[in-house]
Structures are given as C-alpha cells and as structure tokens.
C-alpha cells in the first residue's frame, strides 16, 4: 500500500531537520523524515569538537549539541520520523521507495520531496596510490567514527593525506588519545581546511603540515608499515629525488567530499559537474518539479550554520510548492568565471520577490581581490576581499530590486580580479 504525505524529506541530518521544520512552520501538514541511521543528527553525531553554531546560535557548540537543538524540535513536533530506513528509489511521479525492518518495503507518495542525503568522503580508490591493500588505510571520517562513537583507536603512528577539515580535526583527536601523528601531507600548495583548524589542530601539537607533498606508495603486507612521500611540482607530479620513507601503521585520507547523489542521478535530475550536486534555482528546487535539494548533497559546505540557513530556504520553497504559491517563470542563470569555480544557485527566478544569496568558491588562493558580479559586461556589484581561499565558501547578496531590473534569460557572471 502506498503511504501519502505532503512532504518527504530524505535524510535526517542538519539539512533534513532544518528543511522539515521550516516547511512545517510555513503550513505543511504532513511531513515524514526518512533517515538511514538509527538516530537523527547525521554526521554531527560523530563531530564531537566545537565550532558549530557560532553564526546561527551565536554560541560555540559541539556537533551533537547543535544537532540536538533541531532533533528536539522535530521530536516535539508532529513531523514523523522513520529511522533505520533506507530510500532505494524515487520515481518521476515523486513516489519514494524505502525499506526498513518494521515496515518492510514501502512506497510513499509525496507532493514534494526534499533531498538532504549529505555527502561522503573520497576513498583510496579515487586516488590511485600504489602499494598493498594492507589494513590501516581509511578515511578520516571512518577513523572519527571508530574513535568517537565506537571507542577504538585505529592506529598508533599516523600519517594523514589531505588537509581537509576532518583530517585536521582527526590529527588533534588521535594525538589527544595517545597516537603519534607524524604529519599531514597536502598535494596542493595550500590547505583546503579552515585556518583555525590548522592553528588549533596542528600548530598546537607541533604536527607538521607538508604542502605540495603526496603519498606515492603504501608499504606493508597485513598491516600498513610505512608510506613513501614525495614533493610534487606545479603539475602535481612527484619530483624525483624528493622521496622519503615514513614509518607508520595508519594512513588517514582527507582528500575531499562528494555529494551523495545516486538517488538524484537515477531519477534524471541534472547535476552540476563542478559541485557534484543538483542544479537548483534560488528556492533550491532541482530540475525535477517538486523535488528540492539542500545541504551537502547540493554542494559541500564549510559550516553547518550555512547548511541550516540553506535548508530553511529549501523548506520554504517546498512549502510554497505544496501550497500552490507559484511565481511566473522568468529565469536568469548564474556562472562562475576567472577563478570562480562554481555558483549556487545556478538559476534565479527574477519574480522570486526576495534578496538572493549566491554562494561560490574560488579555485586558488588570492590576496587583495575584488569580486565582480556582472550582467552583459555591466558590473552589478563589486566586493573587496582581503583574502580568498578555495577552502572557504564565499557569498554575495543580490537585492530584490536589482534582480527585478535584470533581463529574462540573461546571465549573471561572478568573477575575481586581483587588485594591483
């Protein structure tokens, strides 16, 4: 039998919870959240460090505390929650097929769907590192789960490849638990992690960060015994003669996150090749009518605070769709150029009647840069930025009155210029 809801939210992490709560506040009556894990909260449950909530709550919380602020509201509301439930398909008629131990296989029909599945880490297979398949090679997030949830220390002498935030956080975490973290190697000449994490996770514990360095071989038969690292040139190729053997029993990978879009892809939703997430308009509706996306499934965010705000936008968008509050179509597309890798949202309805925040990332580090937003070579607005880094998401707000003046079917370009 098909169950019926106005709104189905796929994923009960910070994105799914914020979207569901906002949709409910906007008047949506029947909402169900489908969550794969046994509790709400998503990845925040294992992110026990602090730094969450500084923007949204104006106080510094740990991951579980941030998640609890929302899960308590969800649990007190009439929003239904199905945990231990895995969505296996979404049809083009918006039928969500899911499976769990109590209901078995269930079909849920929805007026609107919000995709909030988050992202996952790039595994070793994505890197092509030579060597054996010894035990002791895992992503930083896997190690985080072992240490913070299960209570295992996955190794005693650790090398971390990639300076993403999870890798930096785990360098500190494993040090506190008695492991020796020998170094963090980063392929690029800059770190992709937040500066504060380099200071308080590496410098505080004298852990070296080796830039323009990568792991070229993993040694050990049953268990990792060491790795060979090497400096890389400007084209990221290892430089002969710079090889160095480092003894270790564990290699953690923190080399990037990929939005988890198997469901979106299977239902034919257009994905942005750069973000890896769906192409959306300003209310976070995908190219499939009535299907919205928010959080790390859409594009990888630096801070959960930004995920919350974006997911509220998606929740409101889904509510307006369910309640039949539509705007007349009049779109403009957005595009990143000259150093701007991507822009989200990719489309804006000029009749949306609100200020629209555009999120973007640059492809390299800049100092004394100016961000220009242009339409037909005419500068709409410019913003000075003393520094820009690929690891830190940027945003600009386009005012509603400015949007209303833009031509339908036009293009809004964001680009970076260095001031000389």
């Amino acid at each position: 039998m098909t169950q019926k809801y106005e709104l189905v939210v796929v994923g009960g992490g910070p994105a799914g919870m914020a979207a569901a709560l906002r949709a409910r506040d906007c008047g949506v009556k029947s909402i169900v959240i489908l969550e794969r894990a046994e509790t709400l909260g998503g990845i925040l449950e294992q992110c026990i460090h602090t730094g969450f909530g500084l923007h949204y709550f104006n106080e510094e919380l740990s991951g579980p505390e941030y998640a609890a602020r929302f899960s308590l509201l969800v649990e007190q509301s009439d929003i239904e929650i199905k945990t231990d439930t895995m969505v296996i398909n979404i049809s083009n008629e918006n039928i969500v097929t899911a499976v769990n131990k109590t209901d078995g296989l269930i079909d849920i029909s929805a007026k609107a769907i919000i995709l909030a599945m988050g992202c996952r880490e790039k595994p070793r297979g994505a890197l092509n590192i030579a060597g054996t398949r010894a035990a002791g090679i895992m992503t930083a997030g896997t190690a985080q789960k072992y240490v913070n949830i299960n209570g295992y220390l996955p190794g005693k002498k650790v090398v971390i490849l990639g300076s993403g935030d999870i890798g930096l956080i785990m360098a500190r975490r494993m040090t506190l638990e008695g492991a020796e973290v020998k170094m963090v190697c980063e392929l690029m000449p800059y770190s992709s992690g937040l500066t504060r994490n380099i200071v308080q996770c590496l410098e505080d514990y004298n852990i070296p960060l080796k830039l323009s360095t990568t792991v070229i071989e993993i040694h050990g038969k049953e268990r990792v015994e060491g790795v060979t690292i090497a400096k890389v040139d400007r084209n990221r190729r290892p430089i002969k003669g710079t090889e160095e053997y480092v003894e270790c029993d564990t290699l953690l990978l923190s080399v990037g996150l990929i939005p988890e879009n198997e469901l979106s892809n299977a239902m034919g939703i257009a994905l942005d090749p750069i973000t890896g997430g769906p192409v959306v308009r300003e209310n976070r509706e995908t190219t499939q009518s009535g299907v919205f996306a928010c959080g790390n499934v859409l594009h990888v965010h630096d801070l959960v605070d930004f995920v919350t705000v974006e997911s509220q936008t998606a929740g409101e968008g889904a509510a307006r769709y369910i309640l039949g509050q539509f705007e007349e179509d009049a779109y403009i597309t957005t595009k990143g150029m000259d150093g701007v890798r991507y822009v989200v949202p990719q489309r804006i309805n000029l009749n949306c009647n609100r200020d629209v925040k555009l999120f973007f990332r640059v492809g390299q580090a800049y100092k004394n840069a100016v961000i220009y937003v242009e339409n037909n070579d005419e500068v709409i607005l410019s913003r000075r930025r003393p520094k820009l880094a690929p690891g830190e998401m940027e945003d600009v707000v386009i005012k509603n009155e400015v949007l209303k003046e833009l031509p339908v079917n036009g293009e809004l370009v964001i680009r970076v210029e260095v001031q000389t």
Partner: protein
Amino acid sequence: MKREMICVACPVGCGISIELSDKGAVLTVAGNQCKRGENYAITECTAPTRTLTTTAKVKDGRNPLVPVRSGKPIPKGLLLDCVKIINSVEVTAPVEIGDVIIENILNTGVDIIATNICCHI
C-alpha cells in the same frame, strides 16, 4: 616586539598583529573584526587556553562512549593531562546533555560536561 597570529575564536580566522612590551604585556591589537578577537589575542599572548573535546566511557549505555567538553576553555598545557583523567572515569547511563562528568578538573575551576545523550540499554 611584534607577534602575528590567526584568531581561532570563530571560523572567520582573522589575521591579528599584536605589539608586545619587553616584559610581554600586550600594547596594541590590530586586524581583528570583533571583540572576541581582541580577547583571543591577549589570552594567546599571556595564558593561552583551548576548549577541550573528547569522550568518556559509559557503563550500560546504548553507546560505549559519550562525547564531553570543558565547560570553559582551559590552559593549553593541561589538555593532555585532562584527557588522561577523563579516560580513567566511567559514567553510568543514562547521560543527558549538560551532565557534569568531572567537577573542577585539575583545579582549573572548569567542569567537564556531556555534549550528547546516552540512553540506558
């Protein structure tokens, strides 16, 4: 004497320049965008502190551990000693967010508190 640092009070990460007297007293703080940055710079030059986050063992809980943190930042030099003390205790489920796990750790005047619930099995 001049000192350059990056503020870790929040994820913005302002670059701060501090001028210190010969005796190590803070004379000027520049580059920060908020009051928290000024406070951070002064503490960092005189007596650096950090918020500690780790886990504590739980008996009869649905999970074997509960995440904890220091209620306030504690002196940087005491972080590893605090972890050793926290690893030596075991609390009994159920645990609620905000429960005090260890009072006044190492006489710092700071309590170690739980940051998640842990249900009884």
